[in-house]
Structure formats: structure tokens, C-alpha cells
């Protein structure tokens, strides 16, 4: 048996858990996305980021003029712009992640044979899943950081704790990217892909982004609280105001579960689609 460098690298992992699906090289998939991204246009990236900024300007500073302070926690009042800013940050993390994890992945799955190429090497499906989700998450993170700087610039960051919103945004991006890619692996046509957008927009509008959930009847509140974006909004809203309590734990767990489910199903589907 000839031991090439590639073989030595693969054999070094023998006996590790999950060796049949994972080779510990998800980063090379991210590197591939970076190489492809270098030659793509920045405009697409910029527009994705602009969306929440526009909402902030029109709703926060426009509609906000008509609205007084909003009570976010007992005895804790903030301006309307400060109320919606964390929600827009969460949404921006979601959008950034979703874009790459859904549409871009869909093209690669159905039209390119990129994943077949990757899976013919010593990579496993979990490497591909993690790498693609990781790249989507980077985009979500980039949007979140850019949006944070804008918030800082217009004076909407009032406590250093707000910086913790960034790791929270990463968590949110990760969750959405993982589930987004998993869902995309089941999609067969453009019509089905559009369903994703049809779900995301109302979720954004009704997840307590623009007004407190208390406006809704009990049953609707309960429903919204099952949706992921509400957890993201609630998490970032608390953190960016420096309000910490055990109530944040379920929000964090929600995303951890999304990540685990997303990775599991993506890996499984890649295996079914390309290795069966």
C-alpha cells in the first residue's frame, strides 16, 4: 500500500468518532466559498445588509417619532428605535445566514455538481454540511457586526453589554443556517424555495420585532413563542440592554437545538442525495 500525504492525513483520524462522515476539514469548504466569493460581486452582499438599516431609519426614526417610550422590562423604558434595533439585529443575522444556506446551497445541490466533487475526496458529508453552514454563518456575523457599528454610530448602544449581542447573533445565524440548509436539501424546485421566503417575512413582521407580543391574544403569543426568530429577538433585546436572567437560557437552548437538528439532517440528506 502506498502511503501518500493524503492517506497519512486520513489514517491519522482512524478510530475517531464519526470517522465515516467527518474528516475534521470543514474549514476547507469555507476556504472554497471564500475563493468563489472573491470573484463574485459585493453588491449582493451589501443589499442584504442594507435591508435592516432601511427598516431602522424608516420605522425607528420615522414611525418612532409618533410613538412614545416602550416598556421592555418592568420599569425599563426605551425609545422606539432602541426597541426595534435588537430585533433588526437578530433579523439581519438570520437573513445573512439564510441567504447562503438556502438559495446558494440550492443551486449547488440541484445544478452544480460541487457537492459530488467534494464528496469524492476524503471529506465526509458532515464536513460539507459544517463548512457550508459555517460560511453562511460568517455572512450572518458580518451583517450583525456591520449593523452593530451603525447602532453605535447613531447612539443606540447604551451599555458595553450590548457587545454580547454579537456572539448571540452568531448563535442565531448558526441556528438559521443549519436549519435553512437542512430544509433546502428537501427542496426540488424554485416554487418550493420561495416557500422559505413566504415563511420568513411574516415571521419577521410578527415576532415582536416592531411591538411587544403583549398586544396579541394569548394563543397567538404562544404560537409566536414557538418560532425561532422570537427567541432571537428576545435574546438580543435582553442582552443589548444588559438585562440578564435565567429567562435567556431557553432562548439559547432553542438555537443549540436548531444547530444540532440542522447539522444532523443536512448530513443525512447529503448522504442520501450523493452517497446512496
Amino acid at each position, binding site marked *: 500500500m502506498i502511503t501518500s500525504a*493524503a492517506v497519512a492525513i486520513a489514517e491519522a483520524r482512524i478510530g475517531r468518532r464519526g470517522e465515516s462522515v467527518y474528516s475534521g476539514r470543514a474549514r476547507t469548504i469555507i476556504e472554497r466559498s471564500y475563493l468563489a466569493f472573491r470573484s463574485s460581486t459585493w453588491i449582493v452582499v451589501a443589499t442584504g445588509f442594507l435591508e435592516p438599516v432601511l427598516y431602522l431609519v424608516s420605522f425607528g426614526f420615522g414611525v418612532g417619532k409618533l410613538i412614545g417610550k416602550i416598556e421592555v422590562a418592568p420599569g425599563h423604558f426605551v425609545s422606539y428605535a432602541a426597541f426595534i434595533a435588537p430585533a433588526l439585529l437578530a433579523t439581519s443575522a438570520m437573513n445573512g445566514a439564510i441567504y447562503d444556506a438556502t438559495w446558494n446551497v440550492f443551486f449547488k445541490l440541484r445544478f452544480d455538481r460541487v457537492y459530488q466533487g467534494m464528496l469524492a475526496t476524503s471529506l465526509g458529508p458532515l464536513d460539507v454540511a459544517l463548512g457550508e453552514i459555517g460560511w453562511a454563518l460568517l455572512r450572518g456575523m458580518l451583517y450583525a457586526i456591520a449593523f452593530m457599528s451603525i447602532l453605535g454610530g447613531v447612539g443606540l448602544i447604551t451599555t458595553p453589554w450590548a457587545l454580547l449581542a454579537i456572539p448571540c447573533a452568531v448563535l442565531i445565524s448558526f441556528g438559521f443556517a443549519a436549519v435553512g440548509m437542512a430544509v433546502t436539501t428537501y427542496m426540488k424546485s424554485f416554487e418550493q424555495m420561495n416557500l422559505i421566503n413566504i415563511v420568513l417575512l411574516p415571521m419577521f413582521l410578527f415576532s415582536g420585532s416592531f411591538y411587544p407580543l403583549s398586544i396579541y391574544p394569548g394563543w397567538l403569543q404562544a404560537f409566536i413563542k414557538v418560532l425561532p426568530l422570537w427567541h432571537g429577538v428576545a435574546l438580543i433585546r435582553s442582552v443589548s440592554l444588559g438585562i440578564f436572567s435565567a429567562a435567556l437560557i431557553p432562548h439559547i437552548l432553542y438555537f443549540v437545538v436548531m444547530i444540532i437538528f440542522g447539522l444532523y439532517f443536512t448530513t443525512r440528506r447529503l448522504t442520501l442525495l450523493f452517497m446512496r
Partner: protein
Amino acid sequence: MPTEKSDELITAKGLSKLYGDFVAVNGIDFSVHKGESFGFLGPNGAGKSTIMRIIAATLTRTSGEITVLGKDPADRGPEIRAHLGVVPQQDNLDQALSVTDNLYIYGRYFGLSRKFINAKIEELLDFAQLTEKRDAKVEMLSGGMKRRLTIARALISEPEILMLDEPTTGLDPQARHILWDRLFRLKEQGVTLLITTHYMDEAEQLCDRLMVLDKGSIMAEDSPAGLIKKYVTKEVLEVRFGSERNAEVSEQLGALCARIEVLPDRILMYADDAEKVLEEIHKSGLHPVTSLVRRSSLEDVFLRLTGRTLVE
């Protein structure tokens, strides 16, 4: 031919693959030895790609046994694939990347260092005669260039086994010869080649040993020369009497040769001395519209084994 166990890189026993109820590979046995060039020859749908993908651990078998380098592809995928260079039937180059980046990132997928890859890239660009196209996007390449790049890419990890699924389909004769030359060189370097093809000349040129497949089953297995010797005579006489008369004269002609095969457009007469058969035809007062004496080929073997021509 080496036959020791230790020399077997790939061994299959009773290997089967079903897609639903459809049997694509039907309980086949074979083994591939170190350093040889092994070919799967068969018409469309014979199961060639299916077998290649099972070996490359990107398709799971339905039943039977297979070991690749002593390991089971069903549960040691990444490890096995580290030994393989795979050239799929349909190119799956990364359209978003340049020629060089395609080679580079493939090396990265195998976990190779940048230094190692960058040195290798120069060698491979030269090997594939793509140095001038190094910065071109893949979509700018011709079909032949893409094929050469796919082969170069498969070599980035210095694989022990190179798997080529119809490496030259769609290429012009010149491009095919260039590719064959490249494959010969690899073989000389000790790389084991696994090739599928439905081109006879390719099989004859490239393969030490051939497995003739049809509908998922093995029809025969030997060296190209061995197959010809075993299943057909040295030479063939092809005669045409026009499509209506072919069947009519066949009985009379049958007596003149070892075996006769009547196709819709021509009659194939197998004999060790075909010139002589032609003379006798003329003597007997029959006058074919056209006649051709040629050496027997794998095409004739295939016809003999399956009653069908390989490429319709």
C-alpha cells in the same frame, strides 16, 4: 498476471446493486490487482458507473462483499477515498473557480498543505497542458480541456488508484490520444487504473484486463487479446448485399466460414483467413456490394457474447 492475494487492491464477491426493484449490478465477482489497468466494458446501462461509485464509496451496495485496500467502503469512506483519484462520467469541476483554484481546493479537501499543493499544481498544469489556461474560469474551457483538468484534479492527492469513468467520451480523436498518452504515463509510474468505456479501441489500448458487462452481469473477463482469441476468429469479413438480400444469402454464406452474424446492414463472417472466404464467395457466383477484411476486435467479442453491437 499477478494473482497473489496481497496484490489485490479491490475484491468483490456477489456484488449487487438494486435501484428499487431494478437490478443494476447482478451479483458480480472480480478483483483488481496492484499496478494493472482494469477495464469495465459494456453498453449504456450495463452498470459500469454504478460499480465505479460503489468502489469509490459514494454509493452503497445492496448486497455482496467488496473490499477496497482491505476496507469496506460502506463504513470507511473517507479513508478509502484518500487513496483514490476519481474522474466521474460527468465533469464536476467547480464552475465558480479558476483552473488553478480547482486544483488547489481539491488538494485542500484532502487536507494537503498549501506548499505541497502549490508545487503539485505546476506539475499537473504541465501534465494536463493547461499552463496557459491556469487563470481561466472553468466555463471558458473546451470539453477536452475540462476532461484533462478533471483528470489532473484527481491526481492532486497522488492517488494509488485512479478511477476513470468514460474518460474520453465526447472528445475528438486527437484529444483522446493525448489522454491515452497521459494515462500510459501514470500506469508506468505504478498507478492502478480502473477504466470504464464503451469504446473498443480504448479498451484495447489501455486495459491489461477487461470485464465485459451487460445488464449488470459479467459476460467475460480476460485480457483484450485473450478475449478475442477465446470468443472469435483472427479475422472477419464484412460483406453487404443490400438490406433485403442479406438474410437471403446468409444460409449459403454460413457454410463458408466458422461463424456468421447477420446484422441489419451487413453480414459478419468469422474466419482465420478472411481473404480466402471472400475468394470463395466470388467463386460461388455471389457478388457483395461491398466487402471488407479486418482483424477481429472486441466489438466482435461483444456481439458474440450478447448478440448485440456495443454502440448502436
